[in-house]
């Protein structure tokens, strides 16, 4: 047997070899390779996010415009829900069997032991019907989540809405994680970071079925959630809601500003919709319905539409002419319809008269004097100099500039300057006669309704403005400093008196174009506008029914409200926009409406353009009132 003795070494060697392999393997797994540590964390640790309550939004009278309400998500743990009665569950949850099967398959694929969403965002009233039945379905349970509610059911365009973040949001801001909600438009978007607060994180250890068992490291790495801040807006919800009511069955917008502060009192875009439509699990469905609507209810006309200002623009022309000294308040020009179309009215003997009667040739004449001041003997060069003077004046009224409005998605108007026309007609290839339409608010000039409401506020203030803004307070703190500074136009305040006088006469004198805006108790100052417009249909420009416009402020001496009303394709400014503006003014100042006939006329009017609003083709001819 001697020869077999060496075999003990073979056996001992096998033992040592196995031990060596184990040691190397263990050293690799436990010390070198981090893969298993990550894997263990993934398996055993759970991060629970505490979402802070989002800030509440109040209006100027401390009424809640946006608050939070508890919704419910139903979640399911596939392993525990193996034997549930799916037919009755589907019925209870009001979903289709296909959807249920799809969700369950996805849940199983994700994890059999961890919960997945089954139905999300069930409103409390629906959940109260589901809750008593849930005990029949083991593995199905609810978790709470707060969603937005808009108790006043108005101001959708102002307030915006929220939905889930997309890949783009996550990339842009690493705060957001898949499944988070983010403010999408309006105030919800602009004040997203103020309203949302800061989420908190708690780390737990979880067991094999995903139930939390204890705090990780006694909460050493946990962070507390910071509540979102509440904000107060300058908006007056009653005025906003009333505006939306008046604007029903009309296209267009209304912007109202408090001249003494620049706070936006109302911003109506029509058609509007109930902001609560874009909350909860019907969000996607409702959104696509709104999106497909040809009247574009999701489009915020007040903030994003640029329109020709029509005759409301004449106010600026008069102020610029006075400031430049090319006319005096008493200057008179004949109503020469050969220059530009007009309606029949007596000759304007003063600026005030011209405003009152909205005389087109008068403003043609004064704008020509602004553009052609004789600074160069060459008419073309003269126009080039004058146009830039004019441009700078108009921009000093905020048109086409950054008004620092605390609102996303704002458009700017357009004020053409010399360079623009040089591009269009070559240098020195144009003069006033080429571009005269601007003088009556047609032509190349474009405005947004916020800009024009601000122009009215400037006139109400006789020469200055605050940047229009929504914010009033952020949790007791005043609005940012930028909204407390006065901005002056290039027109001295002394020149505003004749214009204001003319605006008063527009409403109150027999020949005034805006007499429908008259209120017995309040001195309303206004200016009508009627803008020609064209629509391209099948490649051909068709003239449409004019836009009906009115700018106004009231009362004449301590103005409380400046308003701009723009009704698309509704006709003469004095017919629809003026009375609508006066109703808004009365509602805001007195809180009630004295003339219900006037109110009913507006409420019952359906001014949504249809085929009949496409006028028969004709030579474009400027007429403006």
């Amino acid at each position, binding site marked *: *047997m001697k020869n*077999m003795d060496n075999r003990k070494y073979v*056996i*001992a060697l096998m*033992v040592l070899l196995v031990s060596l392999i*184990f040691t190397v393997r263990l050293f690799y797994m436990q010390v070198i390779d981090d893969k298993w540590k990550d*894997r263990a964390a993934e*398996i055993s640790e759970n991060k629970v996010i505490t979402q802070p309550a989002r800030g509440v939004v109040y209006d100027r009278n401390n009424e809640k415009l946006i608050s939070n309400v508890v919704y419910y998500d139903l979640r399911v743990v596939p392993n525990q829900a193996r034997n549930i009665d799916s037919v009755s569950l589907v019925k209870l949850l009001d979903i289709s069997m296909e959807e249920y099967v799809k969700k369950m398959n996805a849940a199983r694929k994700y994890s059999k032991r961890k919960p997945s969403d089954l139905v999300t965002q069930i409103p409390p009233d629906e959940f109260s019907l589901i809750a008593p039945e849930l005990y029949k379905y083991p593995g199905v349970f609810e978790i709470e989540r707060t969603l937005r509610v808009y108790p006043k059911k108005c101001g959708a365009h102002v307030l915006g809405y929220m939905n889930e973040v997309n890949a783009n949001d996550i990339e842009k801001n690493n705060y957001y994680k898949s499944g988070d909600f983010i403010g999408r438009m309006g105030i919800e978007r602009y004040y997203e970071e103020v309203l949302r607060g800061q989420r908190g994180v708690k780390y737990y250890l979880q067991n094999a079925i995903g139930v939390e068992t204890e705090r990780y490291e006694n909460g050493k790495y946990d962070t507390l959630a910071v509540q979102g801040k509440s904000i107060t807006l300058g908006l007056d919800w009653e005025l906003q809601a009333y505006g939306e009511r008046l604007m029903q069955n009309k296209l267009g917008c209304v912007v109202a500003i408090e001249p003494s502060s620049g706070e936006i009192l109302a911003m109506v875009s029509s058609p509007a919709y109930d902001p609560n439509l874009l909350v909860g699990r019907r969000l996607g469905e409702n959104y696509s319905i709104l999106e497909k609507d040809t009247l574009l209810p999701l489009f915020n006309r007040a903030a994003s539409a640029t329109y020709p200002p029509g005759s409301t623009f004449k106010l600026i022309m008069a102020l610029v002419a006075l400031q430049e000294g090319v006319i005096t308040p008493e200057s008179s020009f004949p109503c020469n319809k050969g220059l530009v179309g007009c309606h029949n009215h007596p000759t304007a003997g003063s600026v005030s008269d011209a405003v009152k009667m909205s005389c087109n040739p008068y403003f043609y004449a004064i704008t020509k004097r602004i553009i052609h001041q004789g600074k160069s003997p060459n008419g073309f060069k003269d126009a080039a100099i004058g146009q830039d003077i004019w441009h700078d004046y108009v921009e000093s009224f905020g048109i086409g500039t950054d008004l620092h409005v605390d609102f996303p998605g704002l458009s700017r108007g357009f004020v053409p300057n010399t360079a623009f026309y040089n591009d269009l007609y070559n240098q020195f290839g144009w003069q006033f006669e080429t571009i005269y339409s601007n003088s009556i608010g047609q032509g190349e000039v474009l405005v947004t309704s916020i800009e024009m409401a601000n122009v009215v506020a400037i006139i109400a203030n006789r020469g200055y403005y605050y940047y229009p803004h929504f914010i009033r307070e952020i949790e007791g703190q005043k609005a940012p400093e930028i909204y407390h500074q006065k901005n002056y136009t290039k027109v001295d305040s002394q020149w505003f008196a004749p214009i204001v006088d003319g605006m008063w006469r527009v409403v109150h004198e027999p020949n005034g174009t805006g007499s429908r805006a008259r209120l017995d108790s309040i001195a309303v100052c206004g200016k009508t506008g009627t803008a020609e417009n064209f629509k391209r249909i099948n490649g051909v420009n068709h003239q449409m029914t004019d836009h009906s416009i009115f700018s106004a402020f009231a009362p004449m001496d301590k103005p409380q409200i400046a308003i701009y009303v723009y009704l698309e394709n509704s006709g003469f400014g004095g017919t629809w926009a003026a009375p609508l503006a006066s109703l808004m003014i009365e509602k805001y100042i007195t809180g009630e409406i004295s003339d219900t006939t006037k109110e009913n006329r507006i409420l019952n009017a359906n001014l949504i353009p249809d085929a009949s609003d496409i006028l028969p083709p004709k030579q474009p001819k400027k007429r403006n009132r």
Partner: protein
Amino acid sequence: MRNQNDSSFADLDWSMVIIYFLLVGLGITNIYSSVYDPEHPALFDQITQHGKQITWLGISLFLGITIMFLETSFIKKYAYWFYWVTIVLLVAVLFTPPVNGARAWFGIGAFGIQPAEFAKIGVALALAKYLSTTDHLRSRGLQIKFSLLPGITFTRMPLPALLMLIIPALLILAQPDAGTFIIFTSFILVLYREGYAGNILLFLIIAVIIAVITLVVADSSFMIPGLKIKLSGKTGIVLSLVTLSIIFYFLIRSVVLPRNRPPLYRALIGSLIVAVIFVNFIEIGYSKILMSHQKERIDLVLGKIDDPDGKGYNINRAKAAIGSGGFFGKGYMKATLANENQGHVPMQSTDFIFCTWSEEWGFIGSFSLVLIYTFLLIKMIVIAERQRSDFTRIFAYCVTGIFFYHFMINVGMAIGLAPVIGIPLPFFSYGGSSMMSFSILYFILLKLDAERKVVLQ
């Protein structure tokens, strides 16, 4: 002759006693941590596994001390009796109602007994007695000759010894308990040490290597570089074997004297044929005969499938637990995966006990435990080799083989080097039967070793 009592303890190997209590003590504290229940915090609480394990330890110690006071001759004399008793128990257990799909348990109240655990003792004793009392290498009548290949005579195997192994192994397989069945192959080590199965061990190692390669490439195919011919993995192996044989042919031709060459050529051709048949056998067995779940276990170890939350759940969690222990571990009672309350690692107090230990004590702990077992196994070989009694030496190798297999498969399984086979880690895993059977083996070995000098007198 010296007093029996004196001799029992005079030459007792106290280092073995220390290792015994060290492993059992670590085992119980580890079980305590792995199944800790705040409602039953007491160490001796009989509802808990650690409480029960202490009871089993008490019973095992009682048995161990009893063994120490037995006469060595008694153990030798009744070796076959032990064997037949365990065979009867193995047959009887097949008529009990199945628990978890296997008829492996005799239930006694809350405690259960697995006769398969005790069969190892019976076989070890019987094998030691048989091999030590007969000069088998000369009694041709009872041998079978392995000469599968022309040119190579494997060896002669004593038929009764083989039957002694095969009968209980088959009874255990009938339960079914594949884990314990595999332990019976550990007795090949004993046969090897005793002069049998010399080439079988080598043959087995080569066979395992070829089998693993075959399984890895079984479902795959590859392209020969430069040629547009697609070959299956199996063809690739066969081509490699042929290439290897050609290399050996040239080696033989250049090194070996011409007159010695023919038998080597025959051996080479024979080996090649057997190897090719073996590859086909494995490939067909794997793809046609094995059940899908058996294939999955093999695929998981080979890394062919990765399904951490499904089929690979157990092994994935076990590896995560061990790997997350790091160098220093998470600390005692701080396992977040291999813990009853967290429940990520299955059977963390029995088959996967190594996970709790390694997670809580890190590499320091796992390496120490590997060292302790390595020391124990080497110590057992030393003990075996210092015997002058054949019976004791053979028995010691049986114990060594059993412990070695348990250690190799249990730890190998937890770290993903062996398929998941449910067998306990000696003295460490919770379980009464294994505790008792390991203790009995251990104490018989101690007793026999303590009398190594008595035998001479």
